[in-house]
């Protein structure tokens, strides 16, 4: 009797309620690791909350931090500019390079594993390591790149202290590092394209170039959108590679928004203002995601 009643009560539930019950653990988990921290972040951002004065009572300042960031803090806008520039250079850059890599990895080689291993390695490398490795590569005095340049008869190049070159090398490393992630998603997409489409095209006399433009690219668009969403969000949060390579230098020209937030909260212990900056970054990420989601939904319709 007692063992039957719960079975019957589950059976009695409407489909909607059952669905909700099944989702409950996930919802609780999301609340715990997303909703609560973001809510707390928003709360702290309304106070003058400094961990360097742990015994002082944080004063409520309302939206003052947001107003200061948006109207009066040149460092914030510099950081936003750098972050946006990194995003619009490295996201398409990684897409193009990643597509090339995926196409190579998809070629009918007898031994595919070397290309696929080469694809995985940069992705498996922690970001900070990648940053440190390339910092040594591009070091002025004892870096590999300047050594090669000198052996070829060129002069040494100021990779780390010329602002444009420092920015360029950082973008280069980010593209190298993230293109393998792109390539893996695109490779999975490539393998879902039915072979017979190409065979039919060949019969109709299409060149490989036409096959690429008319079959491969259109069929890949869903995978590309997925890869772009993930990549854009991580690009907005860029921290590790510039932090390890230049520390934001020279003169703050490679400091991203995430680095500015880190500096404000960890170095200056200004949790109030740091939280406000983090909220602004959260809104930007949210905006970017919304745009992509719209594109995906528009596609389905």
């Amino acid at each position, binding site marked *: 009797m007692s063992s039957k009643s719960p079975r019957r009560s589950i059976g009695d539930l409407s489909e909607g309620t059952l669905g909700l019950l099944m989702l409950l653990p996930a919802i609780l988990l999301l609340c715990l690791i997303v909703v609560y921290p973001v809510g707390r972040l928003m709360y702290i951002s309304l106070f003058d909350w400094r*961990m*360097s*004065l*742990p*015994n002082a009572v944080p004063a409520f300042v309302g939206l003052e931090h947001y107003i200061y960031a948006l109207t009066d803090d*040149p460092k914030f806008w510099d950081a936003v500019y750098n972050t946006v520039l990194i995003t619009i250079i490295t996201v398409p850059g990684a897409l193009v390079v990643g597509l090339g890599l995926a196409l190579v990895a998809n070629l009918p080689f007898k031994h595919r594993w070397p290309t696929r291993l080469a694809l995985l390695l940069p992705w498996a490398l922690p970001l900070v390591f990648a940053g440190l490795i390339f910092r040594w590569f591009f070091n*002025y*005095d004892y870096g590999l790149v300047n050594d090669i340049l000198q052996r070829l008869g060129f002069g*040494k190049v*100021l990779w*780390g*202290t*010329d*602002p444009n070159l420092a920015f360029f090398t950082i973008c280069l490393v980010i593209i190298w590092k993230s293109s393998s992630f792109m390539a893996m998603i695109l490779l999975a997409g490539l393998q879902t394209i039915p072979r017979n489409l190409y065979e039919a095209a060949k019969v109709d006399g299409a060149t490989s170039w036409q096959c690429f433009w008319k079959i491969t690219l259109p069929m890949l668009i869903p995978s590309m959108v997925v890869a772009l969403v993930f990549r854009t969000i991580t690009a907005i949060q860029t921290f590790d590679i510039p932090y390890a390579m230049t*520390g*934001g*230098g*020279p*003169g*703050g*020209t490679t400091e991203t928004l995430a680095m500015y937030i880190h*500096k404000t909260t*960890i*170095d*200056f*212990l200004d949790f109030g203002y740091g939280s406000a900056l983090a909220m602004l970054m959260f809104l930007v990420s949210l905006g970017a995601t919304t745009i992509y989601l719209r594109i995906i939904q528009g596609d389905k319709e």
Partner: protein
Amino acid sequence: MLRRTVTTGLAAAALAAPLVLGALPAAAQQTTLRVFIGGQQRPDVMRPLMDLFQQQNPGVRVEIEVGGATSEAQQQYLTTVLTSRDPAIDVMLIDVVRPAQFAAAGWAEPLDAYLGGTDRATVLRRYLPGYAEAVVVDNKLMSLPAFADAMFLYYRTDLLQKYGLQPPRTWEETVSHARRIMAGENNPNLQGLNFQGAPIEGTNCTFLIPFWQLGGNLVGANNRVTVNNDAGRGAFQFWLDAMRTHRVSPANSAEVRTDDTRLQFQNGNVAFAVLWAYGWNLFQSEQSQVRGKVGVVPLPTFQGRQSATCIGGWQWAVSAFSRNKPDAAKLVQFLASGVASKHLAINASNLPVLPDLYRDPDVLRTNPWFEAALPVVITARSRPVSPRYPEVSEIIRTNVNGVIAGTKTPQAALTEMESRLQRVLR
């Protein structure tokens, strides 16, 4: 099978039991003190001091935790430990610029109650006045001096002799000597004058030294920040000229950190270097390419100007969250004693905090230049004191780094420094 496992387990337990029981009372008496020391502060030289303390205090064990190699890296780590009220660290070695922040945040235990009946004035009277002042914040003893420091000009005695030159007294002389040596040596790897321009703590001094020498004063009357003036422009122009016009300083100065200067000089690639006292000991070491060919003089100044240098140095503090404060305070007092200061002077060329040691024959045997260093240390100037020092430091070093790298004009940097510093120091 099961039975065998059980038997073995029992046997092991029976064997281990007396060991565990025997060890317990001893472990209860044993106090372990964890001391945080930065990577560049020679933990290898500090270790024998800890061993000596252990001998004198049976029941106390001292562990050294080695931190990052720069003042900012150490600060970042300590900040994380201290804001989370972690008792893992008992004693820490902190930069001379930190006590105000440590006092405001309540991270360091005031040591007044641990002096064993001696009053603070008596304890502090032994030290160099600047260092005795630096450890007292809001009438509380926040730390005790570990060693003194200041920036000096290192030079290559062999190169100066070769070209018949005297150690320079002015920057103008330094630059012309450097040009002469570089022209004569014709070695593309030889740098005339090496200094620090990377965005690090020491770079603040790179700016402040010529700024002070030209009559600048960062915080003037009524707490007004005054940096956007002739002294500020002159300070930047001096370093820019050294790099671009005279070409005696390396083109990549904007990425040179403190220890890069030390390494380049030690490898024989530098004629003149602006550096702290710790370099001497390493330049005289076995691995050094310049052993026996190094001279040190007080920093030059501009023709007709007063000399000035940046005060440095480190202090021992007890964490406010330590669970062994009396023992930790005892260790700190030992580490700030004459015995410890002398050991550090001889083995790490750390400038002593006790004036007598500058005339100590043992100290002078390994560091003959210390006698001339005493007046420098006494007159060295402090970087601005503020509980928000990390922000002050970041504003100065980022702008100086930008000017040295050529991403900012001196005028833009000075304008930004003045307005942002005013906000923080108001």
